[in-house]
């Protein structure tokens, strides 16, 4: 009985429902773009405000942005290495900021209050399309980084300690984007579902620690995604001798 009602409640969460936009022949998940535009707009406004009047003695927002910049630089530098981290820092930083803002925006803003004809607003990273897009960008980047830095010698990496590694390394090129995208997607979706279900079952107090846990997971996932992306790029540009 209880299980049945749980299922109905689950259904009321509208998992897997989307707000479809039809443009010509192609179909889009409108809710993903709506939330991402709102969140990225907020991010860009925040950054424009912080960088409007840059001073040598940082004040207010500039301090925060410089801390963020420093954090991203350290992340890129430790994973990619001193030589080429500069080229990839904007990409790694964008991945981090995008995932972080999407995750936290999805968890912190009560999107449920906005009613859509179909589906519901939420973290853009809770949609498989977003995470696969990010993961494929990471794959392209590390291929590009390897090829542009080492030319065809990049493929030495595939037979690096011994040629026995070749099939595994080729397999890795598929598992990397797969694990990247599904880790992020799964974590954020699971967090949204857990909070949603708990809110349905016990609307008061009990969801709060889970929400905090969700914020924690969101931040960690952003860090993991950016770190792994940087690590893959670093692996591709690394000289092994």
């Amino acid at each position, binding site marked *: 009985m209880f299980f049945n009602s749980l299922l109905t409640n689950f259904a009321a969460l509208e998992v*897997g429902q*989307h707000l479809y936009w039809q443009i010509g022949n*192609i*179909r889009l998940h409108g809710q993903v773009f709506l939330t991402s535009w709102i969140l990225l707009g907020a991010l860009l406004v925040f950054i424009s405000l912080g960088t409007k009047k840059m001073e*040598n003695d940082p004040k207010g927002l500039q301090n925060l942005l410089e801390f963020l910049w420093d954090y991203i630089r350290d992340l890129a530098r430790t994973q990619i290495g001193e030589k080429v981290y500069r080229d990839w820092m904007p990409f790694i*930083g964008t991945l981090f900021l995008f995932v972080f803002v999407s995750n936290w925006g999805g968890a912190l803003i009560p999107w449920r209050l906005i009613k859509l004809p179909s589906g519901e607003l939420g973290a853009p990273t809770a949609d498989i399309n*977003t995470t696969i897009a990010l993961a494929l*960008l990471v794959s392209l980047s590390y291929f590009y980084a390897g090829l542009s830095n080492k030319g065809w010698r990049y493929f030495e990496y595939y037979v690096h300690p011994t040629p026995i590694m070749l099939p595994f390394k080729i397999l890795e090129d598929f598992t990397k984007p797969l694990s990247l995208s599904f880790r992020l997607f799964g974590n954020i979706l699971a967090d949204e579902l857990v909070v949603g279900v708990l809110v349905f079952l016990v609307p008061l107090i009990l969801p709060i620690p889970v929400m905090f846990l969700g914020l924690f997971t969101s931040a960690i996932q952003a860090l993991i995604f950016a770190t792994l992306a940087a690590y893959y790029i670093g692996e591709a540009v690394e000289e092994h001798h």
Partner: protein
Amino acid sequence: MLAFNFFGTTEGGLFDINATLPLMAIQVVALTYILNSLFFKPVGNVVEKREKFVSNNIIEAKNKLSEVKKLEADLLNQLQSARSEAQRIVSEAENESDKLYKEALELANNEANASKEKVRLEIESQTSAARDQLSKQADDLSELIVNRLILKK
């Protein structure tokens, strides 16, 4: 039924992959360029300029410190050499005065000796003159006595 709702429908579902994917990728690439020109470049410029400023100042301060230490050592050297020079001059002067004192002493001694000798010689000559006179007078006297004795007879 749940699984059906999750994955199965042609319309929607959790794993409904469509044009959202490439458009999202384009959006993220565009965001990378926007953030690069809006955030990473300007903030990086400011931070790196400051880091350069700080490290330059540290280097400059280190240089100045080493210069100060060099000057200090230089001064100490000069002080030491001045001290030893002063000591040398003092000891030289002491030697000089010692020498002069000794010379003067010797000169005085010599003079004293010379005048002593002169006096001695004078005394001696006077003594001998007196003795001559005495012996002459004694001769005269004896002659007189002899004459008188002879006359009496």
